[in-house]
């Protein structure tokens, strides 16, 4: 059976599944329960100066009857006293020395504060640090969190302060509230960080109560921008992760992937794009810690099927498969094909293609069932029909190359070939 053992800068965990710094990791009871459930490690809820939270704190986006497609919060860093947090960290590490214990930090914006916090946490038994440069609300107003992560110069400076003092590995957590995470990522690496993690939450407004007209989450008739996470942000997180994995400098350090991971499949995708460990928050907040069981079993079964013995065998394998648009092969072409035996005649492919794509599906009226077929000459192979079809494997895309040779956009232009073939 495949081994899920993870070694992140020498910090070992039985599997790559860590709980992200957030409420699931903010105290001893939770973390013990998480370890008992099988989580490989935790990033302890961010520690710093004492703060005070508001009520309410969360809101969500539901989609088509499913709860929490996206999750949103306006919470601050840990609001529990620092000494209690430290005492509990010590107790937890003693009980579960085989699990990763990373402590998330966000000190006040001066060297002394950072040094003091680092010292206390190392003494408490932390195995590594994660620098929270990502929190998009509440802390930024005080020059912390995303305010640091959005400015590469400040980020580099803070990382340097940390590296002066820390004797254990340091991960810098990046905010996605930037047009590119690479500048801050590079600055952190230049400042000496040992690793990167991403993404933190994305600034958002999740919705508005149509009776009161107040956006959510509701706090005494007002709301604020919150931090968005959960399944909805996964594609954005994967994109940011890819840019870090493909950059010459940032790709040199290990990465912990975060953002919308709910299943073993999501985790595998983050790892294929370069993450060594993954962190989960929303999925655990929605379902509890028990989800880790299938995460481990699913990843292990998949690895067995693919012949991967350790996670290092597949980490980063898809990074080079994301290229630039102008390098794509223009002679590649595929065409939709409908399996008439599987088709349930819902007409969804037809109306999608007819109204919004390339009018490439024929409709033959029947009572009550119409028959739908692809106009092969018209189909541009956009995938839309396959994406809307409710029956798995009913629509397949069949390869019909235009020509055998590879030709990309630049070559095409250089040869002066016709641009509009539709």
């Amino acid at each position: 059976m495949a081994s899920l053992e993870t070694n992140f800068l020498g910090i070992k965990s039985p599997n790559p599944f860590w709980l992200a710094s957030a409420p699931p990791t903010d105290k001893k009871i939770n973390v013990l329960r998480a370890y008992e459930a099988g989580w490989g490690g935790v990033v302890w809820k961010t520690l710093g100066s004492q703060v005070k939270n508001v009520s309410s704190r969360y809101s969500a986006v539901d989609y088509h009857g499913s709860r929490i497609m996206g999750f949103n919060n306006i919470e601050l860093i840990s609001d529990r006293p620092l000494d209690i947090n430290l005492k509990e960290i010590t107790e937890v590490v003693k009980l579960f020395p085989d699990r990763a214990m990373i402590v998330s930090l966000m000190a006040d914006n001066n060297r002394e504060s950072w040094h003091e916090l680092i010292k206390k946490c190392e003494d408490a038994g932390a195995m590594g640090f994660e620098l929270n440069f990502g929190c998009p609300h509440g802390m930024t107003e005080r020059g912390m969190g995303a305010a640091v992560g959005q400015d590469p110069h400040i980020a580099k400076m803070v990382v340097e302060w940390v590296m002066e003092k820390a004797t254990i590995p340091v991960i810098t957590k990046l905010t996605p509230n930037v047009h590119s995470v690479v500048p801050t990522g590079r600055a952190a690496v230049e400042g000496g960080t040992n690793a990167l993690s991403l993404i933190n939450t994305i600034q958002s407004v999740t919705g508005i109560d149509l009776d009161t007209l107040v956006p959510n989450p509701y706090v005494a008739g007002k709301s604020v921008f919150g931090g968005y996470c959960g399944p909805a942000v996964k594609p954005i997180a994967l994109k940011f992760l890819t840019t870090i994995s493909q950059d010459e400098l940032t790709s040199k350090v290990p990465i912990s992937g975060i953002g919308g991971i709910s299943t073993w499949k999501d985790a595998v995708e983050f790892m294929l794009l370069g993450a060594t460990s993954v962190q989960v928050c929303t999925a655990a907040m929605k379902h509890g810690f028990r989800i880790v069981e299938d995460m481990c079993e699913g990843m292990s079964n998949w690895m067995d099927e693919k012949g991967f013995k350790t996670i290092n065998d597949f980490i980063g394998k898809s990074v080079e498969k994301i290229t630039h648009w102008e390098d794509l092969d223009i002679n590649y072409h595929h065409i939709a094909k409908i399996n008439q035996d599987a088709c349930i005649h819902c007409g969804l492919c037809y109306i999608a293609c007819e109204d919004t794509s390339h009018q490439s599906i024929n409709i033959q009226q029947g009572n009550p069932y119409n028959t739908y077929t692809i106009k092969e000459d018209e189909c541009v192979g956009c995938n839309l029909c396959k994406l809307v079809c409710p029956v798995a494997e009913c629509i397949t895309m069949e390869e019909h190359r235009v020509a055998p040779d590879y030709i990309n956009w630049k070559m095409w232009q250089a040869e002066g070939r016709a641009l509009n073939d539709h």
Partner: protein
Amino acid sequence: MIQNNRLTETQYQQNFADIHPPFETTDAALTEANRCLFCYDAPCTKLCPTSINIPKFIKQITTDNIKGSAHTIFQSNIMGAGCSKVCPVEKLCEGACVYNNMDETPIHIAKLQRYSTEIAMKNNWQLFERKQSTGKKVAIVGAGPAGLSCAHVLSIEGVDVTIYEKESKGGGLMTYGIAAYKVTPQFCEDEVNYILGVGGIDVKYNQELGKNISLEELQRNYDAVYLSIGVGLANKLNIPGENLEGVEDAIEFIYNLRDKGYSSIKVGDRVAVIGMGMTAIDAATQAKRLGSNEVTMVYRRTEAEKNCTQHELDIARLDGCATLWLAAPKEIVGKNGKVKALVCDVMKLGEPDAKGKPAPIATGETVTLDVDMVIKATGQNPFEQLVSSYGINNNRGKINIVNNVTNIDKVFAGGDCVNGGKEVVDAVQAGKDGASAILKFMLNN
């Protein structure tokens, strides 16, 4: 022995409780609504005789637009609330739902339709506004589904409608014929009132065409006349013993049950129901639910040729009704003027008849059922005498129409009185068709 009051009040309530209960909660309705795929040119809509835009009304449930959802339903079928309880959906919309093609349970369309329409009725949302009166006047005879549907369309278009109804309540067979465990008298009354809520429709109850009013009168006083009188009592068996005490007409039996209260209706210990259509099923199940010990449904052909749906037959079987196939009633035997037994010819199937069904042929053998009650449910008789007396062309009582109009000037017709007896939903569509034909006719005159 034939007797009433066989059960306690609680037992009656239990036996006649809603057979298809509604969604208990909004969440339950939403879960089901979200399962709908929102098909294009949806097969379910194609098999709805009134063409309700089903994907649209279901989607509107998911977007919290219940008013819109109810409007979508009522705009195609003003009896959408009643239909959601009485339509044989397994052969209509739900039978066509694409989920059947994946061997999955179809969407519970009727239950969702009930959800939206019930909320609309409870809140008395009047979703249609009458246009200003055009001064045109139309008389409708019969306040059943066809008549009410026709009246509603006409009224919205600004026509002043008068309905003449021989009974003291509206709804037609919805109120007097359909099984009590599908719709309650209270619901039927509410539905009629809801439909009439649009205004512009005056119903004159206890007014019978041919008795209190004549067709000539209506032709004279109105711009058009719509006949939606339905069909009458069950066909005669024409066998000896038909007049014995204990032989009942299914339609009358159900009418009384709907009108008079369960405990006053007499049933036998052992009942034979003759026929295998929807009416026969309703008579058999309700006799059983009234406390009869044994109910046997008798049919000349085999299960394959039955007129009811499988779903309906299953209901009867689950109620404990027995079936006797290939048996044709020959004689009802009596004692002291009361039913004692039903003698049937044992049949076998022969060549297909004119309708394509194999004709039953007597084998010469007979079978005797010991019964004390016989309910006749072998199809209903159209009002042949009445329509013929006005010179209306008909086919053994079923009114002939061409584009909704009869051979008599200004006189239109639709519903059971034309088709000989189908479903409520067909009658509603007939009413809509009749109304558009009448509107077109009045525009040209």
